[in-house]
């Protein structure tokens, strides 16, 4: 079974400063990795995903993430945040394999990003 750890439950950042949201995963097989964002009173929206290939993936709204297999991490970064980035961010993993296990996503507990004007 796979698991996801988001080390920070809350991250306050000043506007226009850089931010990194941390995500570590555990799995005995290869994985697909995702970051989702949830704005207040809304569902989750896909920010970016890693399936294969380049370990640096770019997503929407200027976010990017780097897959590090040796450290089993998939940290999310943005060089300069805006007020509109205030939201909750979820890291998720899907383990590859036979059967129906690879259909499921396992989510972290989320990181609430607050942008300070």
């Amino acid at each position, binding site marked *: 079974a796979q698991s996801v750890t988001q080390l920070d439950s809350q991250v306050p950042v000043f506007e226009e400063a850089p931010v990194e949201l941390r995500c570590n995963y555990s799995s005995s097989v290869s994985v697909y990795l995702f970051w989702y964002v949830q704005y207040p009173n809304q569902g989750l929206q896909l920010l970016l995903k890693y399936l294969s290939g380049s370990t640096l993936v770019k997503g929407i709204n200027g976010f990017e993430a780097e897959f590090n297999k040796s450290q089993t991490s998939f940290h999310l970064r943005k060089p300069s945040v805006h007020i509109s980035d205030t939201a909750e961010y979820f890291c998720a993993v899907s383990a590859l394999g036979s059967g129906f296990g690879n259909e499921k*996503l396992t989510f972290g507990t989320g990181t609430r990003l607050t942008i300070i004007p």
Partner: protein
Amino acid sequence: DVKVTQSSRYLVKRTGEKVFLECVQDMDHENMFWYRQDPGLGLRLIYFSYDVKMKEKGDIPEGYSVSREKKERFSLILESASTNQTSMYLCASRGSAYEQYFGPGTRLTVT
């Protein structure tokens, strides 16, 4: 554009009532999912379906059942609602590139 809709944004029910939460997707996806979201716990999978009339238990299926009679519709049923089922419920469907598309959520309060 991808669209997943849920029948209600807010719902208030009494303990013991039978509750139906409906989810519809317009992307012809085979896989659909029901999650509940609680503060500090993230999203937890209740049930998923990989085809019409096919279903699999997720991580927390107790107290819930599901129905999938048509490909586009996936229903979550609380047979006898309890206060510990007060939560945000999110439906999703899965695309060909493995990402899941989410509906806006239903905030259910059981009193």
